[in-house]
């Protein structure tokens, strides 16, 4: 698409395990179990047993220190050739997208011929850490040279030190949860409860319909007896959604709009995407669903509220579209990760806002409107769930499949991430 001497990076296919609500079906499975199972499913789907893949890149947002080499350890648990190198990636909720995008670039440059990229996250098996005080005492005891020194250090332990600390999903610099941040952004953009609930409902309906027509037959492999995403509620209605009370932005009082239903649930799961050069795919008799065209990272200054935490994709998209000389009307499908229903709606409103596009994006006019009938057509995170690092792989594989058989048709991806970051990407059907 752009420079010469750069070859296509082909999306061959993907695999994920069904996403399960935290502390349910996968409560006893760790990140390595889930990632290994996902890779095993991918290997089985494409007959990659014994194959030496160029690189495997994946990551987890919530990771035990024992999993310091999570992806490599997972690879060693699969039938892939043990000479397959692997490394861990971490870019919060955009981990999967970053893994896929960077692997696609390696293929484009000819550094590798094949890659697997993805991510995994477990809320159920998240690392529990001890208090800083206890950690300090334990480290002191560890450094002690004699038994009395060690006992002296350990004697400092108080009962209060022993209460475990759950890992924070709050932004370290603001102490606010993503939901609290989003509630502020949603309020600022005037996003209504009704439009959020409608988006959530559409997500469930679209996902359930896709399952029913077998769309996920070659995208999902069951795990621990779970066959479909457990967060999915095919029978949901606007009436049911409308009865829920707000879960975020409660200090907005009557103006609070974000509920448990129009926000993603904490979920466990894993996903992986198989990428390759054209030649590699052909040599291995593998399908070529789509090309990975381009991706763009973005970040915003959210710490003192200058921009909403999850608005980075709004900026990344503008740069990416300009670089590729595209507009939103050029896309057959758009996948905007539903961290919250309001995240999708705020991004759309921003792109449709002349004021935002002029003042914040430095454009001459609004970036354009989004055709809702092309948005998240096979469901998104509100229904499927959002195991942070696994979402990129879910989206890329599903979108590539949706675009397969539509050569030249484009798909747009937006994934927001913690730390005020985000990634947007373009793929092209074939």
């Amino acid at each position, binding site marked *: 698409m752009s420079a010469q001497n750069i070859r296509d990076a082909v999306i061959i296919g993907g695999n994920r395990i069904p996403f399960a609500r935290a502390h349910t079906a996968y409560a006893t499975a760790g990140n390595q179990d889930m990632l290994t199972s996902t890779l095993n499913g991918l*290997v*089985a789907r494409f007959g990659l*047993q014994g194959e030496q893949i160029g690189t495997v890149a994946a990551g987890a947002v919530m990771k035990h220190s024992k999993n310091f080499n999570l992806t490599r350890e997972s690879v060693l648990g699969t039938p892939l050739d043990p000479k397959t190198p692997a490394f861990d990636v971490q870019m919060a909720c955009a981990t999967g997208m970053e893994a896929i995008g960077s692997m696609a670039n390696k293929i484009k440059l000819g550094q590798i011929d094949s890659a697997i990229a993805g991510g995994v996250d477990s809320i159920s098996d998240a690392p529990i850490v001890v208090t800083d005080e206890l950690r300090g005492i334990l480290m002191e005891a560890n450094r002690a040279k004699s038994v009395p020194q060690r006992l002296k250090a350990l004697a400092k332990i108080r009962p209060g030190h022993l209460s475990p600390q759950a890992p924070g999903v709050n932004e370290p610099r603001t102490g606010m949860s993503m939901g609290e941040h989003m509630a502020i952004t949603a309020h600022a953009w005037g996003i209504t409860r009704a439009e959020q609930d409608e988006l959530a409902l559409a997500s469930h309906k679209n996902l359930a319909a896709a399952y029913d027509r*077998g769309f996920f037959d070659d995208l*999902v492999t069951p795990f621990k007896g779970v066959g479909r995403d457990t967060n999915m509620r095919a029978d949901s209605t606007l009436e049911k959604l409308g009865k829920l009370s707000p879960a975020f932005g409660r200090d907005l009082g009557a103006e609070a709009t974000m509920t448990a239903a129009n926000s993603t649930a904490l979920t466990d799961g894993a996903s992986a995407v198989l990428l390759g050069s054209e030649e590699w795919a052909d040599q291995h*008799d*593998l399908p070529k669903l789509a090309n990975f065209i381009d991706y763009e990272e973005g970040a915003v200054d959210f710490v003192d509220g200058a921009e909403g935490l999850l608005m980075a994709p709004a900026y990344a998209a503008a740069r990416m579209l300009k670089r590729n000389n595209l507009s939103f009307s050029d896309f057959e499908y758009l996948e905007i990760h539903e961290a919250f229903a309001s995240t999708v709606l705020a991004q759309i409103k921003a792109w449709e806002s002349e004021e935002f596009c002029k003042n914040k994006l430095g454009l001459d006019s609004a970036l354009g409107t989004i055709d809702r009938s092309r948005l998240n057509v096979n469901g998104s995170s509100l229904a499927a769930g959002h195991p942070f690092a696994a979402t990129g792989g879910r989206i890329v594989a599903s979108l590539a499949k949706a675009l397969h058989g539509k050569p030249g048709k484009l798909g747009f991806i937006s994934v927001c991430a913690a730390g005020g970051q985000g990634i947007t990407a373009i793929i092209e059907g074939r």
Partner: protein
Amino acid sequence: MARDTYTEFANTSFGRTLTKNLGLPQPAKLRRHRPGRPLIEGPVVVLGSSEAASALADRLLGWDLDVRRNVGPKEKVAGVVACFDSASSPADLSSTVLEIGMLLKQLKPSGRVITVSRDPQGTSDPAVRAARSAVQGLTRSTAHEMRAGGTANGIVLADDLDPSAPGAAGALRFLLSGRSAFVSGQFISVDSVNGALPGNWDRPLQGQVAVVTGAARGIGASIARVLHRDGATLILVDIPAAGEQLAGVANEVSGTALQLDITAPDAGDRILAHAEQHHGRLDIVVHNAGITRDKLLANMDESRWNSVIAVNIEAQLRMNRAFLASELFNADARGAMGPRIISLASTSGIAGNRGQTNYAASKAGVMGMVSATAAQLAARHGTINAVAPGFIETEMTAKIPFATREVARRLNSLNQGGLPVDVAETIAFLASPQAGGTSGLTLRVCGQNLVGA
């Protein structure tokens, strides 16, 4: 899989003594095929002086076996091949039959008696047909009398078929081998000179692409393992919900997993597309997927009846139409060996079973489908056959109540249930080029038993 602890116990030295003194069944540990091991250990005696006897003796010699025309009274014998193909009247059978009788006591454990005869339907002469039919009766009865894991089966040659046809050799080798451990009292008909003997008997399916439905567990997984061991490249199909186990089996046998509900209207096309994409060919289809929804007919509901019919037979009919209509599943591109289809029937489909009107209907339907489809495949040098398992130790039969299960697994000539691998071995045989002369057959793998599940 259910564990047959009784058989395990009866094969300990104490168990053997105890069960014998108590007059309890003494299930033997069956000789099963293991790659690299000899086809059969010990002398194989060829009886009869027919055209087939000399042709088959030559085959056996070609396989480096200890082939005899006669043996001493104390000598242990591994197998007996009794050729009756020249019998023109029942009276012609006696000398060879009595020779078999004398050798039975000299048979080693898991010994083999194989009769060779001509197809009774191939003649309208009453005496000839009577003689040929009589062979089948004596074979079945011999099977009942076999001990220590021994089996008796027959090879039925078409009326004018040259006994040196590859199909005859293939059937003979299968019946002598441990692959046929749980096959007894059965007949393999060889109708044509189609087929070919493999260059490597341990890898007869080398280079062949096979699809197995219902491959995630039980018999299906076993079929996958055996086909893989025999050299086939595998496409493993099961419903999406069984995907995790399916992936495990696929990775074990270096195959590809295809999650698919075979009742989907496009199931056949999706299998063909997958085979085309990944392998560029499709040689073997094993219709293993099946379900049971048992209920007495008086209590049968629509969903139980319809789902069993849909999965067990309608899906196979629909997929076969797609396969037979495709270029991919076409003999001409393959040379000597055409496409092969093997369907799972059941002894329930033959004998019927209380509570299984739906299942028995579907499985009898499979047998009907197989016999009718054979003609369509013959044109492209292909074959279609069915395998009807009896009591097999699987997750499914493990759910049968203990007493019923215990009766079911002992009520056969081998005094034990079969293993999934026994079914798989028979399927692998029917999928092999050496079985190319056999089509339209339903071969039972039941230890000569008619209690089905």
